């Protein structure tokens, strides 16, 4: 078993307890998608593409009064240590659902009745915290596609490792740590739109963990904002 934190409070990948992994975001990376983003979040490498609003097939899924949102989170066979079967697992189907419900509070689909906005996420390399990184990319891709939004959705996990509440759990910490709490947050509306927990936290640890996660989401938000600014408001060279 790896030692997850040393005596100086430095984690196995060299970070402090409140430090995010390196994040880089590119906007508009796909030609065919209406909006897209590519994120590297630590060793996670994730693509998100958005199509829509467009006609719904099959038609009986359409809603007369509003557009609908669909979401597919999928991992490439080579994205994890042991080759993954390409068919969607139950885990991927559940994550697709919680990601959809984390994005729904942000998107405004009232003006697009009978249409669908499709969010497709592909995890090319996974390293802990994929659902949060996927959400960060998906949120950017929705904005890039011009879908009206109340706020960006920013996501980041907090957790408990070596008896400490830490920000942004990596793969080793997820495997061998004590708790993992993915959080998605709309920073301007101050709303938590995704929250899960696997692991054991006391009530006071729980409070600290939520607050730590929200702080992380705010840091991520700044990077998402910058990526969009770079794409839309600077002269690219």
């Amino acid at each position: 078993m790896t030692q997850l934190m040393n005596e100086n409070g430095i984690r196995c990948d060299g970070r402090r307890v409140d430090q995010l992994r390196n994040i880089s975001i590119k906007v508009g990376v796909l030609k065919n998608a209406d909006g897209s983003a590519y994120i590297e979040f630590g060793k996670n490498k994730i693509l998100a593409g958005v199509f829509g609003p467009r006609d719904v097939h099959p038609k009986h899924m359409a809603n007369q009064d509003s557009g609908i949102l669909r979401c597919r989170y999928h991992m490439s066979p080579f994205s994890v240590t042991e080759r993954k079967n390409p068919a969607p697992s139950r885990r991927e189907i559940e994550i697709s659902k919680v990601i959809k419900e984390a994005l729904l509070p942000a998107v405004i689909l009232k003006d697009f009745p009978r249409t669908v906005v499709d969010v497709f996420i592909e995890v090319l390399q996974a390293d802990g915290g994929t659902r949060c990184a996927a959400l960060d990319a998906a949120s950017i891709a929705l904005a890039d596609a011009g879908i009206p939004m109340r706020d960006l959705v920013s996501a980041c996990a907090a957790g408990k490792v070596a008896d400490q509440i830490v920000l942004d759990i990596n793969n080793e910490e997820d495997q061998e740590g004590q708790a993992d709490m993915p959080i998605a947050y709309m920073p301007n509306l101050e709303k938590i739109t995704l929250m899960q927990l696997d692991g054991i936290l006391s009530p006071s640890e729980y409070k600290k963990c939520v607050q730590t996660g929200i702080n992380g989401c705010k840091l991520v938000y700044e990077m998402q904002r910058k990526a969009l600014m770079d794409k839309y408001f600077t002269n690219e060279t």
Partner: protein
Amino acid sequence: MANSVILAQLKREQILELLKEGKRLDGRGLEDQRPLSIDVGVIPKANGSARVRLGDTEIVTGVKIQPDKPFPDLGDKGILICTAEILPLADPNAEPGPPSEEVIELARVVDRGIRETEMLDLHQLVLIENKSVIGIFIDSSVTDANGNLFDACSYASVAALLSCTVPKYEIQNEAPVLVEGVTSKPPVKTIPVSVTMARIGDHIIIDPSSDEEACMDARLTITTNTEGNICAIQKGGIDGFTLEQVIRCSEIALSVGTKIRKQLEKLM
């Protein structure tokens, strides 16, 4: 369709009006659970079983225990698998066929509630390390779906586990063989209790009914253990929660959980 949207809107307004006065459609207070009845041993052919009625929601859960191969890299642990099915007779909208994303989420949330609290000591379920272990299958059939399937399935699964008897297997010629007539209690370390809360407007209610689920803004399911810790969470629904609300929800989950745990402890 337009009509049903209007009707849903009217229902929501009615529910909100009542909530302002601290009341709910069926007369409950905001933090009152519907009547919960738990019967165990209802399926004698299973190693453990329970029928749970939570208001008009009804679940039958059976536990099957049999030798299995361990998961790769988890050779020092027995296997624990929770499944759920919303039977088509339970709900006019349920359809036979592969499980929907709702059902997959339901099964996985129930599973995590039991797994993450470390309810069972899975290390005690190994026959030969890396080769042969005891597998515990906890299958829940929803027979009447009337709101809050998460908690009802969780209680039924926990009750079936608490009341199950574990058959004894011996290794003969490297293969597990049943020892007739010898059983033991399951290696229970703690009792997980799931509490599901719904936010409607600014109000947090527990144990939402179907009507309340249809117009809720967001859902939060929190599982706590006997020691008063928080062990598993799942947020759902089309909107979110504030920081204050998720803190408040954790307090409700702990206090309501303590009451329900007493009902479950009697089954051991």
